[in-house]
């Protein structure tokens, strides 16, 4: 590792100013939020921007806004801030609980939610978790803004639909309906998880049948994805009939899952791991839906 090449540091205080700088630099600048990934790339000289645009002084980007319908997280909110925000802990406990297990304390203290999503590491915890909340991101450029779902944002490892002149300003999570239950499971031998699964079960008025579901798997393939096959299999099922079918549902949902070889393992191993993790996460969520304590404890596995 060497020193980064020299660069100018721009410190805008408004989003408009930052977007204008980004446009004028025409691809020759990089956005700087937490810097946990950016500084490594700079020190390796893997990227060579003429300037860094520091987003941390921009009004509003460090805000967390929890309403009855949504949780809006500004791009420069750190994982640690999100984890410790009282509104998030009280109203969005799965988010606070899962974010507490991102990487390590140093990364959580510096790394930002926006940076994490914009970097599009396939092993991102927030990407998997937030898709269970039907999250969307707001992208702002000098010539306007647009909103993309998380599924539309990341299309390949480290590659997103964000244009070079756009700033990821915020991510917005949709509150689950009253009575919904969820679970987040991550398996990993290293700091970056090998498999991540987020489950949300929306129950009907009697709390005995699953009305709808969101099931997301990440870290095993190029990006986090919704398992629509499993969601359809779960929707409309009485809780009592669901428990004995979890093996079958998880197997069907992951049979054609796109997995990718990396340092964590081969594609077949990842698919099998995804199957097991989906079953376990569903078991936890269905137990919670029945008002029971989930009896799922496994090595190298964190369940929130």
């Amino acid at each position, binding site marked *: 590792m060497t020193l980064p090449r020299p660069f100018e540091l721009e410190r805008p205080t408004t989003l408009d100013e930052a977007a204008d700088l980004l446009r004028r630099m025409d691809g020759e600048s990089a956005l700087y939020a937490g810097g946990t990934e950016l500084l490594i790339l700079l020190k390796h000289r*893997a990227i060579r921007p003429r300037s860094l645009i520091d987003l941390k002084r921009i009004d509003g980007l460090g805000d967390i806004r929890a309403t009855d319908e949504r949780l809006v997280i500004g791009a420069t909110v750190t994982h640690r801030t999100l984890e410790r925000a009282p509104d998030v802990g009280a109203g969005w406990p799965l988010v606070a609980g899962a974010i507490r297990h991102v990487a390590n304390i140093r990364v959580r203290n510096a790394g930002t939610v926006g940076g994490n999503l914009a970097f599009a590491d396939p092993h991102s915890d927030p990407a998997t978790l937030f898709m269970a909340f039907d999250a969307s991101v707001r992208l702002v450029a000098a010539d306007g803004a647009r909103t993309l779902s998380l599924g539309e944002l990341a299309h*390949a490892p480290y590659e997103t639909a964000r244009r070079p002149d756009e700033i990821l300003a915020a991510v917005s999570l949709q509150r689950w309906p009253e009575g919904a239950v969820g679970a987040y499971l991550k398996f990993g031998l290293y700091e970056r998880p090998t498999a991540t699964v987020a489950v949300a079960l929306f129950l009907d008025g009697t709390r005995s049948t699953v009305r709808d579901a969101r099931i997301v798997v990440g870290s095993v393939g190029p990006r986090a994805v919704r398992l629509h096959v499993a969601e359809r299999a779960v929707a409309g099922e009485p809780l009592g009939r669901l428990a004995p079918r979890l093996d079958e549902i998880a197997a069907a949902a992951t049979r054609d899952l796109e997995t990718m070889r990396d340092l964590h393992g081969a594609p077949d191993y990842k698919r099998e791991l995804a199957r097991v993790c989906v079953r376990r996460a569903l078991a936890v969520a269905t137990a919670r839906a029945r008002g029971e304590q989930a009896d799922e404890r496994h090595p190298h596995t964190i369940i929130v």
Partner: protein
Amino acid sequence: MRITRDIALSASPANVWPTLWDVARMVECVPGCVDATEIEPRRRYAARMTQQVGPIRVSIPLDIEVTEEKPGWCLVLKAKGRDALVATGVSVTVRLDLGPREAGSSLRLDAEWRVLGQVAALGHPIIQRRAEGMVDEFAARLERALGR
């Protein structure tokens, strides 16, 4: 790393073959290729490839040598280069076999390449995925170029 693709083209082999030697049209067809020049006709060329792989952008000057030509149906070329600023090198051997098919022609592309340095650190699956995307894009652009 290796990619093999059978590309179906609607133009006849007699129309495809000269296009493969047309530097300006190949620059249009190869994703990320800019500044190609002929150094020695049908033997040596120079080009610059730019690619964004994940967060890393590379700009690699390539020396391209045609190592084999069977006029009208086979072409083998080797290319190599290095982006010193990003400490990334690439070498590639491409074999193109052209043949007729019912409506048009079939172009078999067989590419074997090595990537070394910073970009290689992203891992084989990510680079392979990008390379496969480039070959698909090349096929689509070539079909469009032949249709003009």
